[in-house]
């Protein structure tokens, strides 16, 4: 039955995913043109082109961020409506378990969020090299350790080969997506505790969960950052010295939160379901 549930989730999401992918492609085009204009500052000293390029780049960034947030909002609304809204009466009277309902949402809508995230990362990797080169003279600026000068920006930031960096990024994105989708679903489940303002409750829950995650990240990362900076010549070694470490810690925190959120949602759908 999980496959059938997934089929209907896919029917709901695929057109939206296509639209978001289209927006991201268009945004990438705008971003490429914009970074080209930004680069003219160093090459030809054209400030007007640089200014237009910066505006274009901001528009690009707004579009890709908007696409990412927009897809998450769609996934949240879909879960709310089909699990706790009027459609919940259909969903929860199907001969399937609460766990199957949850996984159909996680796998299909999680895939949609993941796809948007991946297109976003590919887009950023195409554009950020040129952006850095346009803004800074990265060959001589020690703080960036030459970022933007050679090859893929992620490879340089992670201190890996191009393929290795993409494997890590895809893994990070997959786990990050799972965690983020679970956080959205857990917020919706916890929002049900608010008797009259369930949507407001879900938003407050999301802010609290996200806030606690940021706080935990800071608590863990600050000592790590101090140790890393004190222990070596970070600026000379390049950014991979610190970004690589950050990534693995962030990944562990994502995993921890993903598991906790899953337990909350699973409990809410299997033991505490009350469609009032």
């Amino acid at each position, binding site marked *: 039955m999980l496959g059938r549930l997934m089929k*209907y989730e896919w029917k709901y999401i695929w057109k939206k995913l296509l639209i978001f992918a289209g927006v991201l492609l268009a945004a990438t085009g705008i971003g490429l043109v914009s970074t080209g204009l930004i680069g003219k500052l160093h090459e030809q000293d054209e400030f007007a082109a640089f200014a237009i390029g910066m505006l274009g780049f901001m528009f690009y960034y707004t579009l890709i961020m908007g696409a990412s947030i927009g897809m998450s909002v769609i996934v949240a609304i879909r879960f709310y409506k089909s699990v706790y809204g*009027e459609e919940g009466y259909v969903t929860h009277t199907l*001969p399937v*378990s609460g766990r199957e309902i949850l996984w159909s949402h996680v796998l299909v809508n999680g895939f949609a969020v993941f796809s948007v995230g991946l297109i976003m990362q590919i887009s950023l990797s195409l554009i950020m090299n040129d952006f850095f080169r346009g803004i800074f003279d990265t060959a001589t600026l020690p703080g960036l350790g030459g970022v933007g000068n050679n090859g893929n920006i992620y490879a340089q930031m992670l201190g890996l080969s191009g393929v290795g960096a993409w494997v890590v990024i895809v893994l990070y994105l997959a786990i990050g997506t799972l965690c983020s989708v679970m956080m959205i679903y857990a917020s919706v489940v916890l929002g049900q505790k608010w008797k009259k303002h369930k949507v407001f409750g879900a938003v407050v829950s999301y802010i609290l969960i996200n806030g606690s995650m940021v706080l935990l990240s800071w608590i863990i990362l600050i000592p790590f950052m101090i140790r890393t900076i004190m222990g070596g010549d970070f600026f000379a070694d390049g950014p991979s010295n610190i970004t690589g470490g950050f990534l693995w810690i962030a990944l562990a925190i994502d995993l921890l939160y993903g598991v906790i959120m899953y337990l909350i949602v699973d409990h809410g759908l299997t033991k*505490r379901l009350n469609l009032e």
Partner: protein
Amino acid sequence: MAELLRTEHLVKVYDNMSMPALDDITLTIPTGRIVGLLGPNGSGKTTLIKLINGLLQPTSGSVLIEGNRPGPVSKAVVSYLPDRFCLPGDRTAEELMQFYADFYADFDRERAETMLGSLQIERTARIKGLSKGTKEKLQLIMAMSRRARLYVLDEPIAGVDPAARDYILKTIISNYQPDASILLSTHLISDVENILDDVIFIRNGRILLCSSVEKIREEQGKSLDAYFREVFAC
């Protein structure tokens, strides 16, 4: 007659209420019966129906459908019609039939198509574009097109015109198998009186009466509607 549904000492207290919505409900519904669940507003009818369908969790006590607690196994044999419209509006009747056929092994597509034709409901129109009455009829058609063991119908005739009511009641009677049962809640007792075998009177979350309609008529010497008005007089 085999036992189809059993509730034992069923209690439901909502979080925001001090009084239980259902208080110590113990009842049995055998196969082959049409049972009316009757009571005034707020008496606990919908709460009981939701508990049977696993949409609410009991505070204490149990619900068993053919020996199973509400879950995937029981939901495969229970056909539920909620008291509100809840079908996804972006689908067509055609897509809805496919959806039901995908999930319910007992869904009879031919029966659904016949009913859609009789009620002149367009198969290719989006549900959200249909009138309120047509949406309710469509929801009833989907519920009654299953060859379920237990039909749980919450106010099936409340939102439709009197002419459609007759069709719906005819549909209900003609579409259920002798080994199935129907639990039907309604306020419109005079409309359903002739099709009911048994009734359950419920007030303030407690069962007042559980009896056959025939017995009520014999013992009270009045129609079920008249007796209901007498029992629940304000």
